[in-house]
C-alpha cells in the first residue's frame, strides 16, 4: 500500500502535496491555499463581531488593506470566511461611493499629513502619536500615499479623511479609491445608509429615484474610466520599489455599473447623462474623483467643459463660482416639475 502523505499546512481545500523530507516551495500556490482555507461560515448574528474580531491583518492600515483585498478578490467563487466578509465590505464601498455621487454637497474632506506634530524635534515627540506613527507604519507603501507630482523631497504621506455632514465616515485610498472607517455610524437618512446599523449599504438594495440612479451611474462610470490614470500616477511615485497594479478595480466597477443599469431597467428609468460637479478632492485623487461641468458666464461666450481628471486640481473650492461659471445640472428642474 502506498504511503499516505500529509502536508503540514493550514486547513485548506487546495491539495498541496509535497515530497517527504524537504521543504517544498509553495510560493505560487499560496493564493489558492489562502483562498480556499477552511474557516467555517459566519452566522448572521456574529457577522459584525467577526468584522470586529477580524484583526489578523498585522498593520494599523488593516481596514484599508481589507477593502483593497475585497475588491481584488471580488470575482472569487469562495464565499466563506474572509470572502464572506469581503462581500460586506463591497456593499459598504458601494455605499460610500453612492453618498459622494448622490449627496456631494454633504461630503467634506480633510487632508491629514502622516507626520509627527513635533517633526522638527524628533527627540521630543511622542513616538506613539498616531499622525507620525501611522506614517512610519506605511513603510514601503509610503510611496502610494503621497502626491507623486511633487518632487520627491516634498512628498509627504497623507490620508484624506472623509465626512458625511460632520460624521467621520472613511477615507480616500490609492488602492481601493475609498474605504470606510472601522467604527463610524451615520444617522443621516439616505438610500446608501442602513438605518438600523448606521453603516453604508449597497444603495441598489434600497429605493433610488431616477436622479439618484443617474448621478450614481455617472460617477461610477467616471471612476471606471479614470482609475487607470490614478494607477499611472501611483506608479510614478513608487518607481521600481514594488509593482503597482490597481486594475482589479475595473471588474467591481463594471459590475456596479451593470447592476445600476439593471436596477434602472427594473424601475423603467430611462437613464439620462447627469453630469456631477465634484471638486472635493486634491491630487492625486482629483484625476479620478473630481468632475466639473461648468458653463462660463459673464462677458465670456457661454461654453461648457466636461471633465474628470485634473481640471479642478489647482482650483480652490468656490473658485469656479466666483468667476461666474456654474454647473448646468443646477439649472435642471426637479423631477416631476411641469412646464406650464
Amino acid at each position, binding site marked *: 500500500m502506498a504511503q*499516505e*502523505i*500529509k*502536508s*503540514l*499546512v*493550514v*486547513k485548506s481545500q487546495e491539495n498541496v*502535496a*509535497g*515530497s*517527504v*523530507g*524537504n*521543504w*517544498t*516551495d*509553495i510560493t505560487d500556490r*499560496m493564493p489558492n491555499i489562502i483562498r480556499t*482555507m*477552511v*474557516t*467555517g461560515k459566519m452566522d448572521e448574528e456574529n457577522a459584525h463581531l467577526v468584522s*470586529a*474580531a*477580524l*484583526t*489578523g*491583518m*498585522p*498593520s*494599523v*492600515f*488593516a481596514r*484599508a*488593506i481589507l477593502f483593497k*483585498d475585497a475588491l481584488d478578490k471580488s470575482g472569487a467563487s469562495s464565499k466563506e*470566511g*474572509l470572502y464572506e*466578509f469581503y462581500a460586506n465590505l463591497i456593499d459598504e464601498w458601494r455605499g460610500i461611493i453612492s453618498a459622494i455621487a448622490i449627496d456631494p454637497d454633504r461630503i467634506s474632506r*480633510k487632508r*491629514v499629513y*502622516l507626520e509627527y506634530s513635533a517633526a522638527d524635534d524628533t*527627540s521630543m515627540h511622542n*513616538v*506613539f*502619536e*498616531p*499622525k507620525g506613527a*501611522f506614517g*512610519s*507604519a506605511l*513603510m*514601503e*507603501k509610503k510611496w502610494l500615499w503621497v502626491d507623486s507630482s511633487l518632487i520627491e523631497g516634498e512628498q509627504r504621506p497623507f*490620508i484624506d479623511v472623509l465626512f458625511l455632514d460632520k460624521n467621520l465616515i472613511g477615507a480616500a485610498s490609492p488602492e481601493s479609491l475609498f474605504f470606510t*472607517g*472601522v*467604527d*463610524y455610524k451615520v444617522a443621516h437618512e439616505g438610500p446608501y445608509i442602513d438605518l438600523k446599523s448606521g453603516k453604508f449599504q449597497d444603495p441598489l438594495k434600497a429605493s433610488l429615484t431616477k436622479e439618484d440612479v443617474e448621478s450614481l451611474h455617472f460617477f461610477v462610470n467616471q471612476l471606471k474610466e479614470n482609475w487607470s490614470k490614478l494607477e499611472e500616477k501611483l506608479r510614478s511615485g513608487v518607481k521600481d520599489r514594488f509593482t503597482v497594479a490597481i486594475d482589479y478595480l475595473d471588474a467591481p466597477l463594471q459590475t456596479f455599473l451593470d447592476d445600476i443599469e439593471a436596477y434602472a431597467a427594473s424601475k423603467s428609468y430611462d437613464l439620462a447623462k447627469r453630469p456631477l460637479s465634484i471638486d472635493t478632492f486634491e491630487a492625486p485623487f482629483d484625476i479620478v474623483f473630481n468632475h466639473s461641468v461648468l458653463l462660463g458666464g459673464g462677458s465670456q461666450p457661454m461654453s461648457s467643459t466636461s471633465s474628470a481628471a485634473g481640471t479642478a486640481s489647482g482650483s480652490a473650492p468656490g473658485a469656479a463660482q466666483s468667476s461666474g461659471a456654474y454647473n448646468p445640472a443646477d439649472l435642471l428642474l426637479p423631477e416631476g416639475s411641469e412646464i406650464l
Partner: protein
Amino acid sequence: MASNDTKNFVIAIGGTGMRCLESFVHLCAAGMFDNKEIEVLTIDTDQENGNKNRVENLVQNYIRIKSEHQKNDGGNPNVKTFFSAKINLYRFWTDYQEQSYKTLSKLSAGSNDTRQENKWLSDLLLEEDTVQSFDLGHGYRAQTHLGSHLMHHSILHAARNLAAGKTDSPAEKDLGKFLDKLGAESADSRVFVFGSVFGGTGASSIPVLPNALKEAYSIMVQGKSLDLDKVKFGSTLLTEYFSFKKPTAADKSTTENSVIADSAFFALNSQAALQFYYTDPTVKKRYSRFYHIGWPSETQNVDSNKDSNKVITGGSSQKNKCHVLELMCASAAFDFFNLPTSELDTQKARYLMRSVPHDGAYTFRGSDFVGPKDGDEMEHKLSAFLAFCHIALAINKGADGQPGVKGFNQRLQKQNITAYAGLTDEDMSQIDLYLRSFAYRINPSNQELEHGWLYQIRQSVGSGTMMFNSSAFPTSIKDLDQVDIGSIMKEEGNQWSEKGLFGGESPSKTFDKFVERLVDGGTVDPSQKVTTTKEKFIAHICNALLKSQNFQ
C-alpha cells in the same frame, strides 16, 4: 552550507514564539547546532507570561551549564557534543503599565488641530470603545492591527531612550545589546523569527520587526545603519493549531478586558494574516523565506491544562503544552541557518511547507524535520540525549528530585573514572534540572510523572509515533525502573540492549555495559573544542552514547 562566518540570531515573540524557541533550545542541547554561537532575543508584551518565563529559565539554565563554575558567560561553542551551541540571551518586553492605546498615544495632547487629527486617524482605523481602550498589560489580545503599530514604536521608544542614555530598564538595555550585536555582524547575518500568525504579539510583530530593528539601530547608533540587504530574515508562518475556551460576556465585562482573544476567530485571523504576508511589499522585501507550518488535523484544546474556568489572557498562568509543530518551526530555523548564502540572495520572499507521512496517524522520523541527510543525525542525537535523561532521572532517581547526575558521576568514580570528581553539586544539579525539563520529573505534590518537552511533543501526535520506540517513553513512575536506554531507537542496528538470564532485555545490564563503554572509550577529542571539566564530562557521555548506537 552556510559559511562558518555566518552569524545567527533568533527572535522569539509572544507565547507561541516562546514555545518554538523551547524546541530550538532543546535541539541545541541535543547538539544539532554544533559550533554555533546564537544570539537569542525574546520579545513579549507580558513579562509575566508563563511560556516566556519557562523558556527564559530554560535558556538561562542552558547558559549556566555551558559556563565554567560561577562564570555564567555561556562558555564556548563546541563540536559533536551535547549543549554544543553557545547561546546568548537578551530579553525585551514592553512595559505598558496598565496603559491603553488611548493613554499611550496621548490623544489629548497637542494643539486643537493635532488632537483632532489624531482622533480622526484613531477612530478611522481602531475601534474606540474596545481596541483603543483595553488594558495592554497582557498583550495585544489578537488585535494585530493595533499590535503591529505598538510593537514597532515600542522598539523605537526604547532605542530613543538608549540614545539619550536615560534608561534604567533592563529590557531596553538588553535590546540595545542585541542591536549592537546585529549591527556589528551585519555583513553576513541571519535572523530567524519564531511566532504565530494567528495570535497577538507574535502575529503583530513579525511584519514590522526588520524595519523596526533597522530604524531603532539608526536612532541608537546615530550615523550608522543596518544594511537589510545583507542581514537575511526568515520566519515561521505558523497558523492555528490549538484552541481554548470561548470568552463569555462575563469575561469581557470590563473596559480593560473588553477585548479577549477568541480562538474561534483564529482561522479567520490566519487567513487575513496569510493574505497580508503574501501581498505586502515591505514583508516580501524584508524576508527571504517564510516557512508556512499548519496543522491540518484536529486542533488541541489547551484548556485541559488549566484549573480555572476563566479565559486566560496572559500572565504566569499562560503556559501551554508543547506541540510537534513547534519542533517543526525549530527545524525550519535549522534549515535557514544551514542554507548556502546563494539561496538567500533573492529580492523576493519564498514560501515553503513540509509534507510528512501519515498512515492513519503521524509517523514522524528525523528526516521529516531536517531532511534525510541530517535526519539520521537528529534521531541519534535526540535518542542519546533521551538516554542521558533516563540515566540521570530514572536510573539515578533524578526525576524524584534526587541528584541524578551526581549519582551517575559517583558510579563513574567507582569505575575509576575520576576525571570529573571536581564537578560541584551545583554544576550537576543544573544538568539535572535541564534533563527534567527535556524529559520528565516526578511532581512532588502529587507524586505523578510530569511530562517534559519531548514527552509533550510525542503526546501531541496522538496515536502516531515520534521517532523512537514507545518503550523509550515510560508513562508511570513504576515504568521508570524498567527503562532500557539501549532500545530507544527503532532500528535494530542502533539498539544495544543487553540480555538478561532468561533472554529478555535487561535494563540494568545495559546500563552497566554503558558504564564499561565510558571506561573503555568515548574520551573526548580535541576537535570537539571542549576545555572545562563540565564540557568534557558532557562530551564523554555523548560520545559513549553515540558510539553505543553505532552512530558514526
